């Protein structure tokens, strides 16, 4: 068999984690460079995946690997990527190096001289660990395998959130510490509950397959196959129950209203890079899994649940945006903005149109990049003033124009200004939704205005106006920070103007999903395309 | 009485013996459970054990019967008696239950358990007995010996090891290390007379709240006297000086009363005086 590319993509960061953790306490910087090197290696492998992946090829999955693992329960080590997965893996591998660079000093021990004390190594090792797990979760085509890593992710995330807060000086250290642990525990509990319900559903799935196919299986491909040629037939109630089990876990991870409250705490308390890791990388697994598992395993139930889910995502969009307007804390504001954006993503997925799902997938990528840009710049800002409160800033634009500029671009991307990447995806989602559910589409459009509101309010309060005393003499972006931000912004611009490479990757996968759900796009009442073709 | 007889009934003699001794055994058992004094329990238990020995014999387990008498009644029960003596023969513990509902629950469980057990025995098909005729033909002891050294040899060895371990363990548990040489009577007397304190050492401070030997007594000037506390406690640094918290309590009390008084005066003044 050929070189196991997918395994390698996941294994490299895992190795990196081990290696980084093994670096002796004194050699802190070495650990950082090591982590960076490994994340770049992963990026390279991801790029190779992108190249080797052939959008035109037949069959749902490519670069597949399959080995028996726990034969007794039909659990297989089965990897494979479709257009959606390969793009998201690329996103993950792309973001992690920036996260590492941005968090370069976030985990430096304060004054301790102890030789056993090595938080830095731990920090970067954990980040790489998360990356490895996320990647394999994107690659897994075996439900059980996916589940394991979907859950295992929580462990390093828990420590990242609980162990490393940003040293914001506006509150006493003890208080921040308690806040942090509260946030970490909340994050863990929410996701664990979701995960456990999903576990039940996973077992249920196995039971059904075992009962109907004779030998139980977790393999997505096999199940879909069996469904296709009628060997496997879910009873309506069973399918719905299983669907809900899966969806609940993903909705918590996504996060969808009203299961969202863990996100602001987690993103608020964690350091900016970790916050990016949460919202831009880990949460994507949730929405991705909705596409890959919910829709493909339980198409009927998905259609059945669509109305409710649409309403929920609508609420998420407006609710998240409104709460973002009301926030006093920069990072919490961005968190609520993310909730609103995840609302858009879910909306697109369950609009059940090519544009909607394509847009949603594109949205995952763009949201990852834009949020990363905004959040990291916000992190740099916070690291300078040691405060997360919007009220503590003002007139930054005067003293640190570059920082302000990048912040503005990030913000504009967040409000999905045309010309920047998120616009394309957001508009696709809206069009996709509108073409099937006009009313929903129109209501969702209100989110655009709210987005403008919270972004501009944030920018105005922090960056413009007379220069605050505390802000005076604030240094502008350093080289390392520019290296982090500039590529992200460049990427935002590029994907805004030329998203075609991504859409090409995504389209066939979306078509395939749509075919699973057996829904076609609604047709326009006046067919003008032929006129267009004639010209 | 022919033990060899394979039958579902026993000889009348055995029956009589059973009915009499069974009553004794149960009585002994009840006594062991209900007697106030440990000594009495031990004795009544010994009685039960002897009865059981007899039953063993009656059941054709001659070896066990003897062992029962020698080991149990002879060794173990005596060991119990020794320990009882150690703890204090006269010590009678009240049978008054301290844990709420314990007795009722215990009784209930016991009753239920016993009933169930007996029911189990009753509806198990245990009618016919094919006695130990040929098993004991070569003599009971020989038979046992044969089994022990062939079939159960490993178990035997292990129990042997167990016994040794138990012996060692008992020693370890009960052994007490002597830290310093025991002082002779002469040395004691000289220490008493020539030592720093001719009068007896000051007594520890004794409070109404708790009779605390670790609380140093207060000297007339209000300072505490280390000497009043046991040397061991001093060495462990377990001297608890309560003079401090006594004062604190007093202060708290004063404040409380102050508050209570102010509550009846006008607010503004009370706020002023609170701090």
């Amino acid at each position, binding site marked *: 068999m050929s070189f196991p590319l997918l395994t390698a993509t996941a294994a490299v960061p895992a190795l990196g984690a081990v290696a980084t953790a093994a670096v002796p306490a004194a050699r802190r910087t070495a650990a950082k460079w090591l982590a960076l090197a490994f994340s770049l290696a992963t990026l390279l492998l991801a790029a190779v995946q992108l190249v080797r992946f052939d959008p035109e090829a037949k069959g749902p999955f490519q670069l597949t690997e399959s080995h028996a693992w726990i034969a007794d329960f039909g659990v297989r080590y089965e990897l494979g990527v479709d257009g959606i997965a390969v793009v998201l893996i690329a996103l993950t591998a792309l973001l992690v190096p920036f996260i590492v660079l941005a968090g370069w000093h976030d985990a430096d021990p304060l004054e301790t001289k102890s030789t056993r004390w090595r938080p830095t190594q731990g920090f970067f090792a954990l980040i790489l660990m998360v990356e490895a797990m996320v990647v394999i979760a994107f690659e897994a085509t075996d439900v059980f395998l996916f589940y394991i890593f979907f859950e295992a992710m929580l462990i390093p995330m828990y420590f990242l959130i609980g162990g490393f807060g940003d040293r914001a000086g506006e509150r006493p250290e003890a208080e921040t510490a308690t806040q942090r642990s509260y946030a970490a525990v*909340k994050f863990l509990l929410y996701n664990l509950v979701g995960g456990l319900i999903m576990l039940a559903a996973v077992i249920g799935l196995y039971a059904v397959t075992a009962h109907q196919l004779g030998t139980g299986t977790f393999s997505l491909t096999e199940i879909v196959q069996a469904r296709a040629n009628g060997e496997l037939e879910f009873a309506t109630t069973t399918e719905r129950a299983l669907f809900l089990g899966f969806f609940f876990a993903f909705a918590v991870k996504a996060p969808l209203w009203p299961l969202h*409250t863990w996100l602001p705490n987690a993103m608020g308390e964690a350091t900016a890079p970790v916050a990016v890791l949460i919202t831009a990388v880990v949460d994507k697994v949730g929405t991705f899994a909705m596409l890959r598992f919910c829709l493909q395993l339980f198409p009927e139930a998905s259609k059945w649940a669509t109305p409710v889910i649409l309403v929920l995502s609508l609420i998420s969009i407006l*609710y998240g945006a*409104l*709460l973002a*307007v*009301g926030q006093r804390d920069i990072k919490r504001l961005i968190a609520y903005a993310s909730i609103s954006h995840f609302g858009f993503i879910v909306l697109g997925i369950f609009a059940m149109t*090519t*544009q909607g799902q*394509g847009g949603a997938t594109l949205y995952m990528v763009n949201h990852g990049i834009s949020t990363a840009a905004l959040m990291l710049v916000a992190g740099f800002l916070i690291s300078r003033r040691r405060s997360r409160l919007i009220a503590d800033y003002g*007139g930054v*634009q*005067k003293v640190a124009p570059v920082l302000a*500029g990048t912040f503005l671009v990030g913000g504009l991307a967040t409000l999905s200004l*045309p010309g920047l990447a998120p*616009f*394309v995806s957001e*508009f*696709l989602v*809206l*069009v996709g939704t*509108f*073409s099937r559910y*006009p009313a929903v*589409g129109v209501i969702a*459009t*209100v989110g*655009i*205005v709210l987005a*403008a509101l919270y972004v501009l*309010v944030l920018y*105005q309060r922090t*960056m*413009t*106006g007379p220069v605050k005393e505390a802000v005076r003499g604030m240094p502008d972006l350093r080289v390392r920070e520019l290296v982090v931000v500039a590529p992200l912004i460049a990427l935002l611009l590029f994907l805004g*103007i030329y998203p*075609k490479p991504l859409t*090409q990757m*995504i389209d066939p996968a979306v*078509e395939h999903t749509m075919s699973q759900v057996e829904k076609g796009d609604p*047709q*326009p*009442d006046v067919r*003008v*395309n032929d*006129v*267009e073709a004639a*010209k | 009485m022919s033990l060899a007889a394979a039958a579902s009934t026993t000889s009348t003699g055995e029956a009589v013996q059973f009915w009499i001794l069974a009553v004794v055994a149960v009585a002994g058992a009840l006594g062991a459970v209900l007697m106030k004094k440990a000594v009495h329990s031990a004795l009544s238990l010994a009685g039960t054990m002897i009865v059981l020995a007899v039953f063993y014999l009656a059941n054709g387990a001659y070896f066990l019967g003897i062992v029962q008498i020698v080991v149990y009644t002879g060794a173990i029960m005596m060991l119990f008696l020794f320990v009882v003596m150690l703890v204090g023969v006269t010590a009678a513990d009240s049978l008054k239950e301290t*844990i709420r509902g*314990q007795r009722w*629950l*215990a009784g209930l*469980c*016991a009753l*239920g*358990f016993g009933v*169930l057990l007996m*029911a*189990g025995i009753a*509806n198990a098909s245990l009618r016919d007995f094919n006695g130990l005729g040929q098993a004991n033909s070569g003599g009971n002891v020989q038979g046992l010996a044969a089994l022990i050294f062939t079939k159960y040899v490993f178990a035997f060895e292990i129990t042997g090891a167990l016994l040794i371990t138990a012996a060692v363990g008992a020693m370890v548990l009960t052994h007490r290390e002597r830290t310093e040489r025991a002082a002779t009577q002469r040395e004691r007397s000289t220490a008493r007379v020539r030592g720093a304190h001719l009068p007896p050492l000051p007594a520890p401070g004794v409070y109404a709240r708790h009779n605390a030997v670790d609380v140093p007594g207060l000297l007339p000037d209000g300072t505490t006297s280390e000497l009043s506390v046991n040397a061991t406690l001093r060495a462990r640094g377990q001297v608890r000086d309560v003079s401090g918290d006594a004062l604190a309590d007093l202060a708290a009390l004063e404040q409380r009363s102050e508050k209570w008084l102010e509550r009846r005066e006008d607010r503004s003044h009370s706020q002023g005086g609170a701090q």
Partner: protein
Amino acid sequence: MENLIGLLVLVPLLGAGVLLCGGRRLDSSAPWIGTLLAALSFVIGAVLFAGMLGRDGEDRELGTTVFSWVPVGDFRADVGFQLDQLSMTFVLLITGVGSLIHLYSIGYMAHDERRRRFFGYLNLFLAAMLLLVVADNYLLLYVGWEGVGLASYLLIGFWQHKPSAATAAKKAFLVNRVGDVGLSIAIMLMFTTFGTFAFGPVLEGADRAGEGKLTAIGLVLLLAACGKSAQVPLQSWLGDAMEGPTPVSALIHAATMVTAGVYLITRSGAIFDGAPDAQTAVVTVGAVTLLFGAIVGCAKDDIKKALAGSTMSQIGYMILAAGLGPIGYAFAIMHLVTHGFFKAGLFLGAGSVMHGMNDEVDMRRYGGLRSYMPVTFVTFGLGYLAIIGFPGLSGFFSKDKIIEAAFAKGGTEGWILGGTALLGAAITAYYMTRVMILTFFGEKRWQPDAAGEPPHPHESPRTMTVPMIVLAFGSVFAGGLFSLNDAFLNWLEPVTGHAEGHSPVTAVQVTAATMVVLFVGVALAWAQYGRAPVPVTAPRGNVLVRAARRDLLQDDVNHIVLVRGGEHLTRSLVYLDHTVVDGVVNGTAASVGGLSGRMRRLQNGFARSYAVSMFGGAAVLVAATLLMRAV
């Protein structure tokens, strides 16, 4: 030839990139770079124009698809350009006026240390605006549409250290965003109706779509137009937008960006023709704004705000005309162009005055400036004559045509619209005369500025006066040129089509009426401000005046309804999120904790009670065994 179109957009975009990303070393040369690139794009525009004139009538339209932008399923958005007469007109206006204003800004912004950004933003604006007018589909137009919004946001808030400026910028962007919602919904509707949103297919297929659909599309398009062109009810941002530097007000908030709405409606003519109700809505909005702006313009003492009000009302004219359908399109665009000239001229003049009066904006503190800044006076005066529609000047031709067209709408509707237009003309005459007199005539009412520095007015440098002169020429002759045997109509006809309405009143009558109302307006203003001395501090005035000073209370309504309401909503939501949504979860956690606390009691530490439970368990096991054997 086609590639030039792309270049047209690219050149200023390049400028923006270079100026914004290029470091401080560009600071000194930035103004010239920016201006040069603007001029270059104008040259390209001119070349294209020449090429277009070279071809005749029908095949003047150029089209090119650069690359496929967002292909997802049936959803095919291309980056494609289309240059027809309509776009051409705009290209020339934008690049022409744009270059002039770049030139002007060199002098005006000479003392600002952030010049580089300023010119970068200006170039960005040019690029976006050009993209807007040469796009060949609505989505790409949308990009330009938001792009100009962004540029305007950046430029209004250019002096960010002033909180008022930052707020105004935010307000402008938000109000525009509301309009953008309209545009995006329109695009979605088009996609669901026609399966595409390229101009060609949509406009051709329009007649085949039901009237209901078309009305819907038309209304949302109108919403978009209202946002961008500051029409009632989304006009509130324009007044505050005057916080920006004056050249910006001249370029973006007078000549070009605010007219994008007119372009949108004219461009979508086919859709509106199929939806009379939508058209009615358009003319209504136009008529209302026309009066609204004019009234506000009368009351303002801030010269720029007064001009802003006038801009609103002039665009009201254009929207009205555009709402009239094929009769009006050409006139709307014509007035748009002439207005571009004279209103830009007026603003530059105002800027020049402020420049001389150390940035005083209150007209009541001007007076008698004509002798101090003659060039400004003359150019401003010509612009003034043009806007009030003095016979022979640009405004006269374009506005009269619109009024005629309004009457030509026919029926009571026609009379109402025509009457409104006339009334508007009268008020225009009144407030513009007021501005003129307050600024250049009467006795000096100058006040020392905040620093106690008494103003010593002086004529502005050459870089500023030249553009004013050029624009003055435009505002004098453009109208006449255009109307020479209907040159402009014929030029636009292939795009907008043409229709002759049968007017109940003859052109002569209309002109006469216009003259009368014009005279009345001027006379009134002179009577009020020319004869009597003008108080430096504004008198309290009657209810209407006070309301007009506050933009007819529109802002207050917004503030109470939207801002306050919004604040309360968000506050309560934040509270709700914390208490209810979070509370449920935390409550569950707490209850579980309490339960376990109660369970802990069982572990009382007495070996014997554990023994009881063990024994009970044993009993249960026995029972279970027996039961199993029983069954």
